[in-house]
């Protein structure tokens, strides 16, 4: 199925969980937060959250930023 991850379309297996996606991307040890179709998916639900084709996924982190 196609998922849009951080703005980029990706082909991924059907029935993929949020945990499996994080492992696939090698982000297990990164502190991050996820939004699917503009709704937060808490880390505590990564194991039980399964994606649907066409889901738009944002995976974010904290970086240096303003202040001004």
């Amino acid at each position, binding site marked *: 199925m196609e998922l849009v*991850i*951080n*703005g*980029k379309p990706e082909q991924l297996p059907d029935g993929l969980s949020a945990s499996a996606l994080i492992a696939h*991307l*090698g*982000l297990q*040890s*990164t*502190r*991050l*937060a*996820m*939004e699917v179709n*503009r709704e*937060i998916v*808490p*880390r505590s639900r990564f194991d039980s959250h399964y994606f649907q084709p066409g889901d738009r996924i*944002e*995976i*974010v*982190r*904290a*970086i*240096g*930023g*303003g*202040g*001004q």
Partner: protein
Amino acid sequence: MSSVMSTASAANSDDLIIDGSAYQSRLLVGTGKYRDLEQTRLAVEASGAQIVTVAIRRTNIGQHQDEPSLLDVLPPQRYTYLPNTAGCYSAEEAVRTCRLARELLDGHTLVKLEVLGDEKTLFPDIVQTLEAAATLIAEGFRVMVYTNDDPIIAKRLEDMGCVAVMPLAAPIGSGLGIRNPHNIRTIIENAKVPILVDAGVGCASDAAIAMELGCDGVLMNTAIAGAREPVLMASAMKKAIEAGRESWLAGRIPKKRFASASSPLDGTFF
């Protein structure tokens, strides 16, 4: 000895209180625009800041996941993180950013709200800011809000429940200093929540002037990160904030048009 003690206790009682938490530093710093994470760390340490703003951005997928992150060099156990909505141009973007930040930082609710109006001025879009503030406050966020130097809007944001109001001194990154000290003064006089100047400071004297107006603190990034020697400027800003605060507390003399001698005239022998 007793005067040393009383000075120390006076300093202790002059904490900055934001949303019930006490901070000894009145300088808040951004963490953007530094050469690298090491320079970020050194500058933040030199500034003495206890509250640091961070941006929430997409993870770089497939790139260098083992590189140290900001959270490694500025441990959240030691610093109060202030996720900010820099770069947001709508209430919806700002609210999404804050929700992601809360999830990222394990339920942390203190945020800096900034909704921009256009890229040329980076002035706040007040209509969107008010809308975002209402939503965030209703969702339990503790909102420190970037706004313009309009006393009416500053009061409105306070009345809505923002925990700190942060008027700009001048456009973001402009380094123009305090362009409207009279409005900043009015905002401070009207307020019951901390008022922090956010944006526009260019050098240490600008920061001192903000504090001498009675600001509770100053938030800056470019003035430090953009200096030729950022770590040295961070140290200068720390001192300026402290000097300005003490000057404000001490109470300046009135300005007069003509001189007033400081040596006594009695006892002159000529």
